[in-house]
């Protein structure tokens, strides 16, 4: 029991750290996500060095300047004569911290050249910066969609379980219908009937609402189960006996009991919805260029030439893994915890 809760805390801290890095992406990223360096398309990731070409040690880390190999247009080599020292806390491209605070300070950067930790894409945009900014959009989409789903699911499921009767049958038939449709196809179907060419903000909202509105069925079923047993508890009957209103009982007694189910569902749904956004954007139905999202960053891999030549374009997919790890481990830790709690009762 003790160990389980410590594990949960560790996982929550891990997730907070990951999200913190992405939320403060403007500070961590050295460049603006849509700033192009046209003479450097598909530059590979640069290694950080401490020893220069003569083998001399430098305390300040540096990267070698990259230049295009003679006779090619996309093959780069390190120009070992030119050292580009990495500077920390430098002033660079303007951005808005947390989306509103105007700032120019970056965690690291380079004055005497450019530094592309994870390489550049076809327009010479810094991939590291784009992954961080893209993460903001993808994570926000996942979190918002999960909130929408959980909100609908909790209300519908709570009402269905509490009132029973025809409310219950209608809600549960609808939930069954939503579960019966293959959800990716359903998502496609919903997206199909929304405008195709829209502004990035609108596209974002559409994606979030479409994903969120489709995922309510599973949480609704689980919440209904909890509400069904909760309303038969003695203290609920007592409250009703004292003349408490339905709204009061739901708010004070029923919904608090669904907390652990809802939290567990949240940990399961967030990565699932991140993936849904990624899939839609990957297929060109989600967030449009030039705004980055993990999905549309990956979509260049649909071109054979990119897939076969520029391995670093795959890195946005790898960026998802720690987030999934955190969320899924948290979900199973929460489930373990609730199982242990049940045995304790």
């Amino acid at each position, binding site marked *: 029991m003790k160990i389980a809760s410590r594990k949960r805390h560790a996982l929550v801290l891990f997730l907070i750290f990951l999200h913190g890095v992405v939320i403060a992406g403007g500070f961590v990223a050295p460049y603006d996500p849509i700033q192009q360096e046209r003479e450097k398309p598909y530059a590979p990731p640069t290694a950080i060095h401490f020893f220069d070409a003569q083998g001399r040690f430098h305390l300040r880390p540096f990267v070698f300047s990259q230049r295009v190999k003679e006779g090619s247009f996309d093959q780069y080599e390190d120009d070992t004569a030119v050292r580009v020292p990495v500077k920390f806390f430098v002033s660079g491209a303007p951005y808005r911290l947390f989306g509103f605070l105007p700032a120019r300070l970056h965690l690291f950067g380079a004055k005497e050249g450019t530094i592309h930790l994870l390489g550049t894409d076809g327009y010479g945009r810094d991939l590291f910066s784009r992954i961080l900014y893209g993460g903001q959009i993808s994570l926000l989409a996942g979190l918002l969609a999960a909130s929408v789903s959980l909100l609908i699911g909790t209300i519908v499921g709570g009402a269905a379980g509490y009132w029973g009767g025809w409310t219950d049958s209608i809600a549960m038939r609808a939930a*069954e219908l939503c579960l*019966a449709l293959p*959800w990716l*196809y359903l998502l*496609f179907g919903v997206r*199909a*009937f929304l405008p195709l060419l829209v502004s990035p903000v609108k596209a974002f909202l559409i994606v979030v609402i479409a994903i969120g509105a489709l995922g309510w069925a599973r949480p609704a079923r689980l919440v209904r189960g909890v509400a069904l047993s909760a309303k038969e508890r003695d203290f609920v009957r007592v409250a009703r006996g004292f003349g408490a209103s339905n709204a009061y009982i739901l708010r004070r007694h029923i919904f608090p009991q669904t907390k652990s189910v809802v939290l567990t569902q949240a940990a399961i749904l967030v990565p699932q919805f991140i993936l849904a956004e990624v899939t839609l954007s990957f297929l060109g139905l989600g967030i449009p260029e030039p705004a980055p999202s993990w999905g549309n960053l990956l979509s260049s*891999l*649909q071109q054979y030439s990119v897939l076969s030549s520029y391995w670093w374009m795959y890195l946005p997919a790898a960026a998802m*893994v720690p987030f999934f790890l955190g969320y899924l481990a948290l979900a199973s830790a929460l489930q373990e915890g609730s199982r242990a709690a049940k045995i304790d009762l």
Partner: protein
Amino acid sequence: MRYLARRFLHAVLLLGGASVLAFLFTALAPGNYFDEMRLNPQISSETLAALKAHYDLDKPLGVRYAMWLKSLARGEMGYSFAYNAPVAPLLAVRARNTLLLTLTSTLLAWCIALPLGVWSAEQSGRWVDRVVTGASAILLVIPDIALALGLLMIAVKTRWLPAGGMVSVGNEGLPFAARIADLARHMVLPVAILALGAQPILVRHVRAAVAEALEEGFVRAAEAHGIPRRRLVWKYALRAAANPLISLFGFSIGALLSGSLLVEVITSWPGLGPFLLEAILARDLYVVIGGVLLSTVFLVAGNFIADVLLFWADPRIRTE
């Protein structure tokens, strides 16, 4: 038998509900296939109105639904604007390809997951169990899209497998056996992606169900009677654990169907996925409805198969 009849009725009702839902969404949609033609100065507004009337897009929703049902009865499922042909034959070819992919990967996924899960439950706590649970935990945190692109990348770099499509160029001229071999080579990559992606969830459930059954009193009693371990696990415990696993089988068909949409696009497999995507981009209304509904049919059919299997496997349901 009443149980099966009830499940069947349930499936049919679900499909009816799904079709109504699909039509409702179309009503919410701003714009249609012909709206983009408005920008073309060579097409007059009268022609556009005539086209709309020709395809009955000017009728109210209820009427359109009734007409669609009628065309479904004729086996057409509406009309594709982009292909200028009835939808059903267009869908049939793609659906065949998708089914080939989905069913193969469902079978493969279960053929791997069942023995692994049972083995891992039987060896609970030992190194086999640790390796299996560890591997499935790793697979679980790799998102489908990362897995698909990663495997595709490996296939492209090593040139072991064809990078996409369903057949090679010049496939038509080959003898039958060579054509099958060619198809199989093209299937390896998408099937591997789908089967691997489904692994962790299947293995976990099989392991949990069998481990629970192994704890039951009747299994211990059987063990005390001297029934060999292998027989005990495969005949006694697995049979007791079968119930949730059969339901999971039905679900896994649906999950693989959803997953196949993305995998088909990534590996350019000419199935429902790319077809649907193309139809969405072209706003080809009835193709989208048809595609979504067809996938629902597969899913509902999968669940119905699971119901039939349950009926066969579980005597409690039969006598109910």
